[in-house]
């Protein structure tokens, strides 16, 4: 990720210049290295896509070139233009994250149209790469949206990492009500040592941690943010331990709860959290 020359072929394939409507720039795509490493051994590849220009006509023209047919079918059935734009932007981020992974691990410059990102079981994105069939089921990817930006994290599956989760939220938005609606008092009390000016940003990171852990476990928040409880916060290292409840497991058994550590931080005006299911 740090060797710029290695990224050169990837950069050349960035941008939608060859697509119809190329005079309109739709989505700006940037690799994002900060959320890709964590103390617990997470090693991922991350990309951010930002809307530079909102134009529904551009979306309709570009979609068949960006999306595979099964993706395009899903895209067509989304309820409105905003949802379609967001979904497509998320696919681009995810495809780029997978392309970065394939470049780094296989030395392979994958065309955008060779990567498929479709909804899988439990809503987790499922990755296909027609050009490298040996990667089938070997790559986990997670997508998050925030304002006009989408990010995606891709990682290779192993016995230490079955799935990954990422979540981002804008640091500049108003988040009034989040402390009361998203946490119990024992969780917010973990931020008592936090300087007042940093508290809102940390609260947002804790929220992202819950979301990222839910995604990594494939259960989301299951309609209740209190399904996942923040147990410990390391303000220095940026680690947040979450006790997650996995719906469907017997509630009387301790095995229904699992502890996962999320790595949190902030960058590019966003709070972020990444987590993996080991």
């Amino acid at each position, binding site marked *: 990720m740090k060797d710029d020359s290695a990224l050169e072929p990837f950069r050349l394939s960035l941008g939608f210049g060859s697509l119809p409507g190329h005079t309109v720039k739709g989505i700006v795509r940037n690799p994002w290295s900060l959320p890709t490493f964590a103390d617990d051994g997470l090693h991922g590849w991350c990309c951010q896509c930002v809307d530079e220009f909102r134009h529904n006509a551009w979306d309709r023209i570009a979609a068949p070139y960006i999306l595979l047919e099964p993706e395009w079918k899903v895209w067509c059935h989304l309820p409105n233009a905003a949802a379609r734009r967001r979904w497509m932007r998320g696919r681009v981020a995810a495809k780029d994250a997978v392309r970065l992974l394939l470049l780094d691990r296989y030395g392979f410059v994958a065309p955008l149209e060779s990567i498929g990102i479709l909804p899988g079981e439990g809503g987790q994105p499922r990755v296909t790469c027609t050009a490298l069939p040996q990667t089938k089921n070997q790559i986990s990817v997670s997508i998050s949206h925030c304002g006009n930006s989408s990010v995606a994290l891709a990682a290779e599956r192993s016995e230490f990492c079955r799935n990954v989760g990422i979540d981002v939220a804008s640091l500049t938005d108003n988040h009034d009500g989040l402390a009361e609606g*998203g946490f119990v008092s024992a969780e917010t009390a973990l931020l008592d040592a936090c300087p007042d000016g940093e508290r809102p940003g940390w609260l947002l990171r804790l929220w992202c941690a819950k979301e990222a852990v839910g995604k990594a476990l494939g259960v989301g928040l299951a309609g209740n943010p209190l399904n996942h409880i923040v147990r410990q916060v390391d303000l220095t290292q940026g680690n947040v331990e979450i006790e997650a409840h996995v719906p469907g497991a017997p509630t009387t058994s301790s095995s229904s709860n699992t502890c996962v550590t999320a790595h949190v931080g902030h960058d590019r005006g966003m709070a972020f959290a990444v987590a993996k299911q080991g």
Partner: protein
Amino acid sequence: MLMSWIQQKPSSGTPEATWRDVTTAINQVLGKPPGTTPSPIQPDALLGADLGLSSLAVARLAGLLQKRFNGKPLPFHTLFVDASGSMLHDISVSALVAFLNRHLQRDKP
């Protein structure tokens, strides 16, 4: 502006008042401050699919409504479970209003 809405005297608890409280809170979460002309919210609009609320926004909405009703804890998580115990991925504004009316009515002396 937001705080002044929250700190106003508690809602009268009538269905009409609850509807106003819910739509005001939704517009706050959507970033539309009181005093501006908000887009009309239909009762059958879904919080996620139609109004575009993320899970973070839904949590904020729950927190704002909780504050509006004097910090009274409300079991918002039960909103996303149907009668058979299955998870609902989205709920309508009218379901949220009915939920609040039910719980506020239940706690009246």
